[in-house]
């Protein structure tokens, strides 16, 4: 199975960067019954039901590995179902249907669901069994047909002999060595041409600058060939009758076959999700009816793969309304947003997620705006892009993520716009989460405030490069109250970082004076 998300329109580059397509590849398993699955947002009700079913299935399966192995043997019937409907099933379609029914019964027997359909499916399998030798992949024949087949073989030998007789007669008549029915051409000045023209065994047709010789096979040969063709017709008609009989019987069960097949495809998809979930140590989210997002050790694999052992999973608890994240530069604020986007996006598609625990509502929509310097493609400045992002209404239940809220314009306007938007979203039925550098935001009442944990200031004695700094960043989110002290500290942290890495001594001294206050 290959998972595809075709309507990924938000930002293809972002999708690649955060590894959505790579994540979907975790679920690639070669299962003929489900070669592709096109994902789409499930919608709140559907997603809730889907996760509920997955949870129940997860608890109910006795042996997932065995079930997966059997599921891999289920043939694809997408091409057979229309044949059943049109009563045109052929030998190959019949064999595939037979194997599907057999494997499906095997699966039902080890599954913990109702087994009441087994007799009906078994009856159809038995009916096919009468005419189909599944082991050999052929239709069964009776003694009469076997005899006819033997007679055809004898006739073929006879036709071969008679062909040789005909060829000898041609040679005697025209001096031309021919092998019936191989084609032959001769030049117009060929010595045998006159004889051929007079012969009753051959004729010539002009073809470009040569003569094409055509056969006039004698009656003894054509009669034998006709005899063989007649027998072939009897055999063919015999098998067509069997096929026709089977088509009628199968057509009567069309509804149940289609239903069982669709159910099996759906179940197979769920088994694949659960199988891969266990294989890659993923989890199913707990679905909350109220708008929230609480994750323990949430992972963004694209970053985890880069940072390997130094990767710090995300722990955060967001609620309905406006949620704000402060933090020093390079502290990992954007990665937090991307992780939440990634996990929420997976939930909206009904997939297992990489985390230890995730309690979340089903987002009606997941939107993210990351800081940019504008794009030529959109013909907008970075401020224009941000306004464009907010110009669309967010449906109730949306998860809206914004990096560096309104830092795309001058700080005074940016601060005012941020305040207006945060106040607005704080009373809306959306989960709004942004990062910001505006300390004034803290004055807004009832905001959920978070900050990135600061780096230990002592590390400046032991680090030389920005990469060293990154390696020492705690990358942890802390919930904070409305007091302003940590905002001041955060400003100091940016000064400390700048002082440590800037080489110019004059600037260093000025920064030091500023830090001392």
């Amino acid at each position, binding site marked *: 199975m290959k998972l595809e998300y075709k309507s990924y329109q938000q930002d293809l580059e972002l999708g690649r960067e955060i590894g959505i397509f790579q994540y979907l590849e975790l679920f690639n398993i070669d299962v003929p019954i489900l070669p592709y699955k096109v994902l789409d947002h499930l919608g709140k009700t559907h997603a809730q039901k889907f996760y509920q079913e997955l949870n129940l299935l997860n608890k109910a399966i006795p042996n997932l590995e065995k079930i997966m192995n059997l599921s891999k043997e289920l043939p694809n019937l*997408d091409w057979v179902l229309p044949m059943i409907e049109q009563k045109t099933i052929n030998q190959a379609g019949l064999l595939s249907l037979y194997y599907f029914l057999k494997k499906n019964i095997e699966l039902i027997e080890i599954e913990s669901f109702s087994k009441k359909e087994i007799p009906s499916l078994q009856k159809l399998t038995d009916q096919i069994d009468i005419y189909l030798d599944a082991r050999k992949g052929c239709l069964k024949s009776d003694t009469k047909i076997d005899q006819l087949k033997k007679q055809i073989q004898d006739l073929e030998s006879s036709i071969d002999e008679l062909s040789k007789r005909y060829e000898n007669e041609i040679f005697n008549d025209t001096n031309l060595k021919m092998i019936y029915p191989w084609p032959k051409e001769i030049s117009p000045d060929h010595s045998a041409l006159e004889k051929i023209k007079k012969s009753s065994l051959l004729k010539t047709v002009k073809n470009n600058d040569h003569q094409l010789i055509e056969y006039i096979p004698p009656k003894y040969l054509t009669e034998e060939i006709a005899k063989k063709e007649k027998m072939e017709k009897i055999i*063919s008609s015999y*098998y067509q009758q*069997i096929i026709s009989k089977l088509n009628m019987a199968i057509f009567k069960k069309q509804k149940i076959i289609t239903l069982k097949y669709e159910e099996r495809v759906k179940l197979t998809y769920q088994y694949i999700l659960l199988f891969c979930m266990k294989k890659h140590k993923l989890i199913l989210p707990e679905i909350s009816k109220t708008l929230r997002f609480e994750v323990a050790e949430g992972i963004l694999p694209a970053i985890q793969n880069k940072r390997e052992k130094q990767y710090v999973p995300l722990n955060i608890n967001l609620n309905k309304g406006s949620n704000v994240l402060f933090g020093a530069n390079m502290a990992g604020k954007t990665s937090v947003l991307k992780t939440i986007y990634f996990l929420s996006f997976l939930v909206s598609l009904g997939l297992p997620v990489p985390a230890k625990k995730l309690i979340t509502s089903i987002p009606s929509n997941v939107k993210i705006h990351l800081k940019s310097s504008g794009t030529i493609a959109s013909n907008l400045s970075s401020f224009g892009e941000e306004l464009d992002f907010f110009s669309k209404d967010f449906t109730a239940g949306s998860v809206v993520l914004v990096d560096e809220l309104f830092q795309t314009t001058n700080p005074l306007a940016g601060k005012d716009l941020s305040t207006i938007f945060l106040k607005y979203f704080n009373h809306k039925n959306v989960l709004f989460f942004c990062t910001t550098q505006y300390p004034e935001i803290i004055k807004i009442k009832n905001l959920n405030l978070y900050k990135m944990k600061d780096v230990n200031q002592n590390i400046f004695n032991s680090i030389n490069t920005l990469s060293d700094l990154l390696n020492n960043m705690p990358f942890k989110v802390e919930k904070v109250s409305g007091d302003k002290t940590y905002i001041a500290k955060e400003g100091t942290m940016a000064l400390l970082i700048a002082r440590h890495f800037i080489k110019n001594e004059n600037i260093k001294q000025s920064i030091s004076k500023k830090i001392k206050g």
Partner: protein
Amino acid sequence: MKKLHTICFIGSDKNAGKTTAFNFVYAKLGIKKINTVLLSIGVNGEDFDSLENHIKPKIVVKKGDYFVTEQNRLKELDGLYDIVKIFSPPNFKKIYVLSCTHGNLPVVLEGPNEKEEILKIKEFIGSYFDQANILLDGSIDRQFIASEEISDEFYFSLLITQRLEQIKKIKNLIRPLTYDVVIPQIKSFIKKISSDRYKTIIFDESLNIIYKGLEISFLDKNLLIKLKENAAKKIYIYLNGALTNHLWEILSPFKNLTLILDSFTQEMISNIPQFKDDTIKKLLLNKVKLSGIFLREETSKKSDIFLPENVPVYNLFREEALDEVRI
């Protein structure tokens, strides 16, 4: 002998007599007692030739032999064959069936057009049989037929006419057979660094990669830049795409260049003056084992086509019939 041996048939044009050649070799092989599988790239064995308005020779699969075809081609033949394997999605775009005939059976062969699908079928055949000959009705349009993974030996069917376009096709098919094959060291290097994505790869004598081009070669502006930058050096260019007139015009001024063609089916150049000079050395990545050439002559006039030496040439339409070969 290898477990699987694939004999590939290529026609220079429509009505070059490929099916007749196919039947001839198939009939000769029938004497040997090795499993035989008939496979086609795309469709072959259709009864009627709409181009020339006449009935074409059929492929009749002999009793006990195997064939692969698209399931719709088996309508009306139910009961006359055993199904060994059904090849279905996701690895295949259509449904193909590997079957064994109960008796002699005229079948329209239709196989996949993609290399990966042909390889999957070969992989199964290799696992199913201890030993087998595969007769592959190839298509000249499919460059991958020349790959060692696909074909072990070839038969060409050539349509000899007075029409320049047909003569050009034959020359393009025959000419690369005179090229030397790259030394094993370069061959393994190319195999290591190449993939279907890369249309051109430039490297030097010390096997340092200079350039890997993703774009179609003659549209690739960076290719020309890299060639100019390295014009003084002895360099190789591996080409995984058609060698067209336009590309040849780009490449031919670089005298220190050695051109390596992935397949002998790549040359699509007309007789342009630069080509006649033939200043650039050309090599083939894979050795081509050509076992026979079948001619279908529409004209008796002599042409300037030089057929390779030491390769048997047959004219089944004009020569004396061979006793041991019956359809």
